[in-house]
């Protein structure tokens, strides 16, 4: 057993861990990053192969060796989830993500207060744990800005220092400056969506993407090949942690990345401080790192799982769990799809960045009046690629219009005609937090290391959520018709209740140690030298927007607090 000492150890070097690693190492702290997967490079992502990366999910966790199980309720049997939405290599999910890079709106950070103000307390479902965030937009804005500029995000401002700008997202919160790069070129589906949405008086705009639209920081610009979501970028135009923060961390001389390192425990002493972590390395070697600061950033499943696996006599319910809220309030975006096909024109949505290409924010968050609708909060409504990826294998998985069977000559003819002539819209819905949506340890399923698998108990089908999905799916139907598509149809939404994309929660942040796990700096209330970062800290989903830019802004804020406050005065930051 090898033991090593360092200032900071980081578990998982993905979207969040990669930022904190670089920032602390640049500030002169000795940092070791432990990453269970390999470190790949840009040339590894050529050539693109839909079977390997989309269908067989080569860049994602292997569900056989790293299973996460799911059940709709505590009475049901939990089985492995067929697709895992997190990273499995240095750079984490940013290697193969769709690059949608959003800021939340100002009021999203005070969602409970604002909801009660506008609709009364009775609008919030009794069983929901909807709360305000302990951090404000104004506090986070400099870090959103830093993330956009340091990583590289392309887009168009819709609100520059309070001034509304047409063509950008007119609902966005004020930003201090324009995006560092102009938006990417639009494809045919964006052009159709733009026209349809405008006809209805809505406000479409190109989605902000962590992709270089022009050469940026010595990286080339996008080639519009279409292989983003589920793929690594073959030219390095995608602003993944691999090509942004890891080179910075390397250059600092203070960073060491250990790949193939599976962390299984955070170690603690009787004073309540954590002392480091233990991990399985190559050849199943058992290793320990002693560190002054432990940053846990392996995505939400292992954020909770590691705390539970690290229980001691002093902390019998797991580390960081004096509140009893560890592993609770799990959330996920549900994806409500609507498809259109055209007879007389091509859409060719396999060109240009895959996932959500063009968006409206009109029915997201609280940007519309919910009075009388029977639900609160909304969705990001976008057009993009089927199943978020543009190849024909992905397209073969979509729900079909009425009257089209899933096989046979009729299906073949439909698919042959529709593949290059269809548009794929998706409403990504913000679901509310509920305390009984949880992650715990599966008593029956173990991973390749013999550790109990994280088990998710979750069912999205609540009255508030079902009403929202029906409403936003209907809005997409209206946009599809306004686009002039002869055929418009909606797909059923996870009929079994399984969570959709972007899982969040489990170590929620708050202002009170009694009902939250971490403070706004992602520092645990119970162990001042232990930080749990990532979307596990989100107390609500915030919006229907993809979460990563907010994860990254919070990571910058954590790094800033450690460098400028904690280092001088170790202890609780609040």
């Amino acid at each position, binding site marked *: 057993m090898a033991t090593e000492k360092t200032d900071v150890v980081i578990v998982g070097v993905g979207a969040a861990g990669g930022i904190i690693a670089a920032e602390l190492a640049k500030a002169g702290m000795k940092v070791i990053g432990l990453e269970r997967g390999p470190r790949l490079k840009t040339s590894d992502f*050529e*050539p*693109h*192969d*839909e*079977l*390997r990366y989309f*269908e*067989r*999910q*080569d860049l*994602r*966790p*292997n*569900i*056989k060796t790293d299973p996460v199980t799911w059940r709709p309720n505590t009475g049901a049997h939990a*089985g*492995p*989830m*067929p*697709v895992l939405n997190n990273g499995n290599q240095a750079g984490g999910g940013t290697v193969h993500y769709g690059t949608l890079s959003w800021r939340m709106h100002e009021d999203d950070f005070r969602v409970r207060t604002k909801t009660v103000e506008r609709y009364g307390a009775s609008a919030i479902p009794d069983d929901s744990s909807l709360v305000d965030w302990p951090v404000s937009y104004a506090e986070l804005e400099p870090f959103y800005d830093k993330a956009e500029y340091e990583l590289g995000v392309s887009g168009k401002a819709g609100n520059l220092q309070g001034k509304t700008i047409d063509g950008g997202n007119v609902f966005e919160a004020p930003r201090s400056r324009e995006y560092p790069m102009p938006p990417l*070129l*639009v*494809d*045919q589906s964006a052009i159709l969506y733009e026209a349809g949405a405008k006809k209805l008086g809505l406000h479409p705009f190109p989605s902000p993407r962590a992709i270089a639209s022009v050469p940026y920081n010595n990286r080339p610009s996008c*080639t*519009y*090949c*279409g*292989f983003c979501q589920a793929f690594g970028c*073959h030219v390095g135009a995608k602003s993944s942690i691999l090509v942004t923060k890891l080179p910075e961390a390397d250059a600092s001389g203070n960073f060491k990345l250990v790949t193939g390192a599976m962390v299984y425990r955070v170690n603690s002493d009787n004073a309540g401080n954590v002392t480091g972590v233990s991990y399985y390395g190559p050849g199943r070697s058992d290793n320990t790192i002693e560190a002054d600061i432990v940053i846990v950033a392996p995505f939400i499943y292992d954020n909770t799982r590691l705390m539970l696996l690290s229980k001691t006599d002093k902390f019998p319910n797991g580390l960081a769990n004096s509140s009893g809220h560890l592993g609770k309030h799990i959330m996920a975006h549900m994806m409500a799809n609507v498809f259109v096909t055209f007879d007389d*024109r*091509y*859409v*060719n949505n*396999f*060109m*240009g960045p895959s996932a959500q290409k063009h968006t409206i924010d009109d029915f997201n968050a609280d940007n519309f009046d919910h009075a009388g609708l029977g639900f609160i909060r909304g969705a990001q409504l976008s057009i993009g690629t089927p*199943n978020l990826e543009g*190849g*024909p*294998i992905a*397209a*073969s*998985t979509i729900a079909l219009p009425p009257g089209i069977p*899933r*096989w*046979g*000559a009729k*299906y*073949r*003819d439909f*698919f*042959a005609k529709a*593949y*290059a002539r269809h548009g794929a819209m998706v409403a990504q819905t913000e679901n509310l937090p509920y305390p009984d949506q949880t992650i715990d340890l599966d008593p029956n399923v173990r991973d390749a290391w013999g550790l109990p698998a994280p088990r998710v108990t979750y069912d999205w089908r609540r009255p508030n959520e079902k009403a929202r999905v029906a409403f936003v799916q209907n809005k997409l139907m209206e946009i599809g018709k306004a686009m002039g598509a002869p055929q418009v149809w909606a797909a059923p939404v996870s009929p*079994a209740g*399984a969570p959709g994309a972007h899982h969040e929660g489990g170590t929620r942040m708050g202002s009170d140690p009694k009902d939250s796990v971490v403070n706004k700096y992602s520092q645990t209330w119970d162990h001042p030298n232990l930080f749990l970062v990532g979307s596990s800290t989100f107390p609500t989903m915030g919006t229907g927007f993809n979460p990563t830019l907010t994860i990254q802004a919070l990571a910058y804020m954590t790094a800033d607090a450690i460098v400028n406050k904690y280092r001088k005065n170790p202890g609780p930051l609040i």
Partner: protein
Amino acid sequence: MTKHDEGRRAFLVALGAGAAATTALVPEAFAKDQKQHHAATDAPPANRGMPPAMQHMGGGHGAFFNDDDARTVTAFAERLMPGEPGKPGATDADVLNYIDLALAGAYADQQDFYRRGLTQLDAHCSQAYGKPFRRLTAEQQDETIAALEQGKAPAFVWPSAVAFFNTVRTHTMEGMFADPIYGGNKDFAGWRLVGFPGAQPIFTEDDMKSPKAFAREPIVGLQSRAKSKEG
């Protein structure tokens, strides 16, 4: 196993290594049918070469399927994606070859699923028509597939009829639309059918602006990309 088959198998095992081989996106299959079944079934598949009688089917097999299985899978896939002049189907694309190689390599953990599924399929067809699936008329085969899709085939226990249908459908689509390097999508049959130009490394501004079919040749497959990478 012929030399040729050994080569194909080794190649596929190598390709599959590290890949998460799953029945992808088939919730029913994962929720109910992922449990392990160890009951004795047929002996391991006969590793025979391709007898001349099979060659007219255009289908390579022998890495996993025996002749009867190969005929059944060929017929099943062809009913799912039937070919017509100008509209290549599963046989034209050599979907059988794709599935055969996948089951010998990346999807080796699904061999039992197929073995039992195919046995149950024939049990169902014997009850309903007195013949195995491969000897039914096209109409009877369609009726059978519809019964599986709707879960109306009581001969199925594990895998369930629905899970078996979903998996064969998924694998047929993979064989139609995955890069030819995996053994199907022969001569880009599937990509030509739907108008997908393959893994183009770049689209231009003019490409993006056009509401017309993208017709520029060549279609780009992994074989040619790999060469250009070396060169």
